[in-house]
């Protein structure tokens, strides 16, 4: 090909020119953005979406953060250690047998559309959650039937439980109250408004929906005349929960001030951003325990000596290293913030001599077995623990097969005694500070649930658990729970791991952050926040 080529530079020039044009058009568009008017809008950069807002249908940390912002419950958890504060209910009485609970409602509470929050709304909300039988329904469904909720008068509601249940109150903060008129106006078929409530709210809380763009962002607008008032001098104009799914993007957004709070960074990243100017990291001990559940119903883990050998070979210090020191090792099956927690004596720690001694007593004195370690696909820390296990159990000649499963598949595996894996990595946050919320995970009725994949079986412990939940006197309950903690530790149904600190990185002008360990990892109470620039 011998074409003269003198004109070709023209083409190249055109290309370059076009490139430059595009460049000048867009470069410099990455600017800090505005706040709304006089007041500020807080931007929360989170990874987890809120696909289903309905408080009767779902809860997880991001969902509940939004629910807590838009709805009120009879009572509310606040502070560390958590206390139950009166909210829609100003006061309450309980019968001596812990079966009848009467709540007196605040008289000035109103829903976002102006309707009053009355006893009928409370009754309706409990009935709706129980009937839909999803989300938080399990917490009370064994004790409370829809007929058990009685409207006494406009501002008094009474719960008549089918059995005594001392921890009743401690579950109520997650039972949000919705406006029956709004919900039923959007009923489709007999769905009790489930479809509509997915992306809409009918609450009385401090915020209401402004924009709800699934998969992108959720914007809340503060209710200026919130019935309970605002604790801060200059409340927020609103909150944007922006989905930022990548750590690098979260960090960059925080640095540029495009996001004011971010969650879910890696331990390393938290340490890095904490050193940056203008950024602070809130760091608190949470209530979420990490444990590796054995399936004690099937060989080889039905062998207590093998379980103890594994538990003593495990390097607990690795937890601290993985979290760069921002974690606390468990000293009991119960989290520290749980009422009645004790430090169980001789709690297992790494001791290879003991591990080998236990192994020698087991049916597998020379190891030579491979154990399956199942964890949630994509959960970084659980994956690291698996690598630690492989490393730690090599000296015992025990192999580990790491099997990541999606959460549904993992739950499906764990739901049957025969298929529940040898070891299952579980982060569990108790939904209440009452010890029953943790102790009951070791009861037979928890078998097959994700926290009951150990199929732990000890009639004596079960008896104690049942006895303790029926008593309304704490003095009576406390020693029983101490006994339960010791006995469970002794049976070693799992490797009792650690409680990782909850961390959020935020701009230093974010004020009024209130931590409460009973909230989920990542969940923030938006009500008290302000921007103090």
């Amino acid at each position, binding site marked *: 090909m011998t074409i*003269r080529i003198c004109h070709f530079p023209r083409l190249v020039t055109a290309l370059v020119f076009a490139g430059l044009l595009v460049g000048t058009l867009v470069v410099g568009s990455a600017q800090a953005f505005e706040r709304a008017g006089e007041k500020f809008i807080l931007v929360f950069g989170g990874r987890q979406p809120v696909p289903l807002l309905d408080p009767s249908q779902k809860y997880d940390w991001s969902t509940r953060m939004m629910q807590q912002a838009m709805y009120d419950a009879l009572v509310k958890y606040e502070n560390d250690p958590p206390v139950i504060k009166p909210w829609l209910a100003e006061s309450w009485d309980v019968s001596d047998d812990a079966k009848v609970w009467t709540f007196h409602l605040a008289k000035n509470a109103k829903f976002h559309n102006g309707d009053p929050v009355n006893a009928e709304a409370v009754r309706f909300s409990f009935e709706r959650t129980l009937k839909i039988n999803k989300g938080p329904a399990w917490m009370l469904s064994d004790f409370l039937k829809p007929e058990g909720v009685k409207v006494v008068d406009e501002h008094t509601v009474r719960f008549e439980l089918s059995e005594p249940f001392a921890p009743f109150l401690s579950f109520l903060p997650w039972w949000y109250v919705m406006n029956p008129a709004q919900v039923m106006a959007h009923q489709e078929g007999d769905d009790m408004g489930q479809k509509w409530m997915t992306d809409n709210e009918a609450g009385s809380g401090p915020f209401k929906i402004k924009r709800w763009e699934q998969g992108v962002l959720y914007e809340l607008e503060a209710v200026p005349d919130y019935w309970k008032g605002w604790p801060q001098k200059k409340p927020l104009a609103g909150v944007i929960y922006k989905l930022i799914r990548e750590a690098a993007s979260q960090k960059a957004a925080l640095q540029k001030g495009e996001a004011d709070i971010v969650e879910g960074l890696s331990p390393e990243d938290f340490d890095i951003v904490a050193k940056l100017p203008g950024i602070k990291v809130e760091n608190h001990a949470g209530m979420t325990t990490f444990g590796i559940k054995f399936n004690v119903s099937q060989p080889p883990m039905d062998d207590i000596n093998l379980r103890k050998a594994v538990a003593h070979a495990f390097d607990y210090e690795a937890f601290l290293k993985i979290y760069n020191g921002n974690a606390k090792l468990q000293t009991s099956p119960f989290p520290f913030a749980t009422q009645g927690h004790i430090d169980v004596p001789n709690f297992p720690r790494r001791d290879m001599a003991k591990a080998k001694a236990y192994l020698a007593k087991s049916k597998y004195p020379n190891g030579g077995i491979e154990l399956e370690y199942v964890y949630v696909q994509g959960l970084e820390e659980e994956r690291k623990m698996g690598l630690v296990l492989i490393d730690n159990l090599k000296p015992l000649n025990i192999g580990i097969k790491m099997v990541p499963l999606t959460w549904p598949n993992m739950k499906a595996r764990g739901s049957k005694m025969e298929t529940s894996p040898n070891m299952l990595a579980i982060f569990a946050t108790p939904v209440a500070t009452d010890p029953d919320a943790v102790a009951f995970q070791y009861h037979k009725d928890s078998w097959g649930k994700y926290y009951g994949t150990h199929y732990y079986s000890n009639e004596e412990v079960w008896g104690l658990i049942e006895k303790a939940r029926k008593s309304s006197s704490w003095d009576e309950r406390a020693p029983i729970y101490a006994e339960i903690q010791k006995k469970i530790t002794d049976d070693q149904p799992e490797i009792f791991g650690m409680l990782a600190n909850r961390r959020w990185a935020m701009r230093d002008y974010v004020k009024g952050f209130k931590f409460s360990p009973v909230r989920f990892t990542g969940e923030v109470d938006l009500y008290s926040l302000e921007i103090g620039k």
Partner: protein
Amino acid sequence: MALFVIKRVALLGLMLIGLILIMFTISHVAPGDPAGVAAGPDATAEMIEVIRKEYGLDKPLPMQFWIYLGDVFQGDLGRSIRTTHDVTDDLLRYFPATFELVGVAMLIAIFFGVPLGMLAAVFRDKGADHAIRFVSVSSVALPMFWLGLLLQLFVSLKLGWLPLGGQIGLMTERPEPITHLLLVDSLLRGQFETFREAFAHVILPAIALSAPALAAIIRVNRAEMIEVLHQDFIVTARAHGISSFRIVAIYALRNAMIPTLAMIGLRFGWMLGGTVLVEGVFDWPGVGLYAVQSAVNSDFQPVMGATLLIGFSFMLANFAIDIAYGWLDPRLREAG
């Protein structure tokens, strides 16, 4: 011609049913328990049963397929078991963003691919040809997601020129929808600042997505151009003293456009597939990200829906090209 079109439409329908059958077969050998997930972490057995009934998971398989097939043709792709949203609603919400991303990526690929292909042909076996060949082979070999990360790292984080991710800034109100395409709508509404912002957001993901198509377009153009340059009319034109720039830019380019168009149709589908990698990196709220998020959570209905949508778009694109070709070239009608 009418017969040809009818035949093609029938084939299209048949292929769609085939695709639905494949997807259905795949999704129903699943070991997971979708009802269990939907019920939430602490659900009791009866709560799970409630949900199983609600989603029709308790019926026999052929029945479920029949129902699903009927639903699909009525535009009902089922519900996400994780979020309870209608999959069709979700897909309609996310598809415009994906379409826009793919569109811009395609424009980038054409904009750079055609001239580069021409240059390579003209400088055949010279330095420029080798350089362009290297670029084109490289853009196939670069993992799209990694290219995306590199672009983020350098262009966004180091240089700070372009945003890291997302489709638009946080505080920017979206324009009133007309076409639901952000770039188009903001122009139609005269909101140029919004347009500029949206454009800044789309560049990096579009570049990452365009890489393989760029390679293909370069190659096709180079090959066609080499062939065209040897044809009689070009030789004649040159003999008449028409400048080589004009020859290439006008006559030869025109002749090379048809195979390029065919390539674009083919690449359109591939690019839709590429969105499952690129959208995740750039937080692009489109169908690809939706499919991945659902896949990772074993939420099958959305994965099936997204796959069907992508497959169907791909079929439609090829269908359109078939028709166009049949129209251009009567011989194909006989064969088809």
